[in-house]
């Protein structure tokens, strides 16, 4: 069964790159541009895995994850955060917010797909 | 239709021949967009003598250049007997006023000879070369030199 990945990033470049890497790996990709858009899209279309950036306008990645976890339909949907920061504090914050895992930017498409696989059932 | 007897694989050009007074000229047919009858042109102030004015070509403003005057030949006043060749020259559309258009000629580069020295300086400026067909001498015109560069605005 084809899995759907929701990618949330305010950078069009990043969205395109994620789509390219994931689509090549056989995933169906849907997109959103910020946290608010992400919650709406997730609610409307659903997804098996979510990948989200942290720094976004309107609602950032942490806010999105918290919003997502508050939704009964998506409490157990895996969500990975994209982060250029590799410091522990940010990772901890992501974890606290409810992130399942993370991918460091700039991302290696192989590692990206790996990470998705690691959280997608 | 005149055909040059040998049409080799080398560059063959199609040219359109026209007449001004007693002389015959031709230009690359690719540059010519259409042939129209003459219509009176709106004159432009302080224009050179060969600039007859502008006409309306389906909504575009087309300058009309009297080729004979441009070549320094004696010409008559434009009338309904004249013909305007609408040509694309140097990114612009212009109308070339001639007496009549004759025929379409196919030519190889080899058949063209350099302009003889007897031709006037003025004509030589525009003529790329000459060739003969059926005993007619036809001058090949370089259109790009017809249109003058925009003159610097008078202070």
């Amino acid at each position, binding site marked *: 069964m084809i*899995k759907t990945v929701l990618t949330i990033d305010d*950078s069009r*470049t*990043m969205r*395109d790159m994620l789509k*390219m*890497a994931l689509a*090549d790996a056989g995933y169906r990709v849907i997109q959103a541009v910020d946290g*608010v858009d992400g919650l709406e899209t997730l609610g409307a279309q659903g997804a098996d895995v979510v990948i989200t950036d942290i*720094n*976004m*306008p*309107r*609602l*950032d990645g*942490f*806010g999105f994850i*918290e919003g997502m976890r*508050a939704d009964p339909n998506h*409490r*157990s949907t*895996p969500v990975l955060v994209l982060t*250029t920061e590799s410091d522990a504090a940010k990772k901890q914050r992501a*974890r*606290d917010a*409810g*992130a*399942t895992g993370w991918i*460091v*930017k*700039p*991302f*290696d*498409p192989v590692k990206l*797909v790996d990470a998705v*696989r*690691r*959280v*997608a*059932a | 239709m005149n055909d040059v007897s040998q049409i080799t694989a080398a560059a063959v050009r199609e040219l359109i021949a026209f007449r001004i007074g007693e002389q015959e000229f031709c230009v690359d047919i690719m540059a010519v967009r259409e042939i129209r009858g003459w219509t*009176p*042109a*709106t*004159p*432009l*102030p*302080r224009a050179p003598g060969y600039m007859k*004015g*502008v*006409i*309306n070509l389906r*909504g*575009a*403003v*087309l*300058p009309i250049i009297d080729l004979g005057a441009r070549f320094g030949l004696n010409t008559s006043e434009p009338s309904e007997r004249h013909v305007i060749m609408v040509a694309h020259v140097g990114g*612009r559309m212009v109308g070339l006023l001639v007496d009549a258009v004759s025929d379409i000629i196919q030519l190889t580069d080899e058949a063209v000879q350099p302009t003889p020295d007897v031709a006037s300086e003025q004509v030589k400026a525009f003529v790329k070369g000459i060739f003969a067909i059926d005993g007619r001498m036809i001058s090949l015109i370089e259109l790009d030199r017809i249109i003058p560069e925009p*003159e610097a*605005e008078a*202070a």
Partner: protein
Amino acid sequence: MSDAADPFEAIKVVFFQECDELLGDLEVGLLAIESGAADDETVNAVFRAVHSVKGGAGAFGLDALVRFAHVFETLLDEIRAGRKPCDDVTVKTLLRASDVLADHVAAARGQAAPVDEARSAGLVAEMEILTHGEASTPGAEVTLDDVPEFAPAFAPVMAAAPEADEFGFRPVAFSFAGLGESVAGAAEVAAPAGQTWRIVLRPHARLYANANETGILLRELARLGEMTVDLDASALPDLGDLACEESYLAWTVDLVTDAGEAAIRDVFDFVESDCDLSIRLTEAEPEAGEFDAAPADFDIAALLAMAQAEVAPAPAPVVEPVAPSPSPAPVAVVAPPTSAPTAPAAPAAVTIRVDLDRVDRLINVVGELVIQQAMLAQRVTESGLARSSGVSVGLEDLELLTREIQDSVMAIRAQPVKSVFQRMPRLVREVGEMTGKRVRLVTAGEDTEVDKTVVERLAEPITHMLRNAIDHGLERPEERAAAGKPIEGTVRLAALHRSGRIVIEISDDGKGINRGRVKGIAVARGLIAEEAVLSDDEIDNLIFLPGFSTAETVTDVSGRGVGMDVVRRSIQALGGRISISSVPGKGSTFTLSLPLTLAVLDGMVVTAAEQTLVAPLTAIVESLTPRAQDIHHVGGHDPVIRFRDQFVPLIDVALGMGFRDTPVPPETGVAMVIETEAGARAALLFDAILGQRQVVIKSLETNYQQVEGIAAATILGDGRVALILDVDAIVASWRKKAVRIEAATRPDLKLAS
């Protein structure tokens, strides 16, 4: 596998387009911060802009850009977190950094020269000092080590021959079709000589709350080698006491692998702090499986199948991730994110993207419609049909409708001048730096709209005039202080609509035009006669003469041989006018006036010597029939006509244009009093006035060239071309002739060139 090269290049194009937008946002945000109009969200947006540029650049391996952006981003991070202040010095540094960032982007794009290394390094040093304080090692460079590992370019990675990765796993294919199936077959069996590890995993509730699943963790471990799993469900309470979101299960895994501890730990990377985990090496020989409650015949596939099955609230001691109940997640409550969602953005106006060609074609067709309608109206009038007839009335309605369509269509192509204005702050900064002047740019009316064709051609003249204002208009800081002015000069760029045209004003509060000097230079260059008496206004406008330049040395800024005459010509080519007014010591104002659109004009159709001409309605003050007693001849030959209580020059247009050789008695014609952009008045003599008409402007330059005195052409109802007069130019050239005539009669005067 798809060929990644082309899509990769396409994404690169997207990246650079995005960079343009981000750089624009960056500048707008920084300017807002500079003017004190910023809030926290502005600072965040500025950070995000640089962050996004860096992110994309990293993916494409644009090292120089990434390095610079990283330092920039770090400083912005400090500021947005409130750890560093954003004072005046900082803002100015940030603005200059944004300029250099733009240079790096342009260089990375291959579109511009390589970045000025000294300038870039200088800004990096400045930013580091602001970030770390003076204690930082001067000139410390950001090395690639400080910046996260760059991913190699996409293509090579994807095309690389699969080699053993850190899991010791050799990928076979990127197909995930086999996900649900037995994984055992896909994993390469570890060499029998591999080590045996004992891994004990006791997940905390949060592991599941974050949607991690033990089943998947075990599956990942299985990729590393052969393993056996033992479940410890001893902590599982009775069903009645079961709290769904708690975790009661623990697993013990014996894994034989040669992948090493790091690889094993890596599997638990995401969940490490959400579980109790112990990984230790046991003896080389795998222990004989001693399982407590696990089924004898262990099958990972079955495990997965059960794990994927819908969670039934069964207390059965199977490996099943406990799904948290739909009550609030038991995770530690996190304080609401500081970047709380701002008020939802106002619903944006719905827009569509349209091919510009289609718009242009539509505008052309509408232009033809206007012409056809005019032609039809003319024929109807000529046919003698009564004005009250149904046809005539219908035609009038048609004219109204046509006008409406035209206005709407023109509005499609109308654009705010903002796109031109927004390049100017950077220009002003750079010119200010180059000339050593402190300058502040104030803009107004950015949303003023004008036809697209005009907007694009405004940039150059505005740029020249701003350069001019800063380089020549503004005084050096010392001079300004001495004059009691604020050290920082102000240049104002404004756009507004005025009487059917768009007006652009560029003013400075500098020293104004030095009239004595200007006149002196004009005389020295032979442009005017020494004894010529000129009004202040006329002296100011001397700077528009070709060959005029007040710069003693050709400065790098404005003196590149581009004088104000070139500026004026480019404005005139747009059908516009430019004038200057100046107050010594206070400043100067350049005023550009342009038609709103290059396409349409309200005109008065007139005849002169059998030629039909059109005068722009906006220039016309009044028309009158000349009477002999109102006409006088100055100096014996220059006719002037009385208008209200003034005398204005009477210009025979047909004569001036060469349509006629000899003048005609003015009383036989009609005089149209016009006003030039500079406010000068004159009366143009025509044979007759035919009427007012809206005409479609056709360019003469497209197929011919600019003609003095003629602004453009149009096609009248009869299909013939009529020339549209450039009233300002007519008056100006008449003046020159008048001067010439005067000079001819007074040989002591030098001729104007």
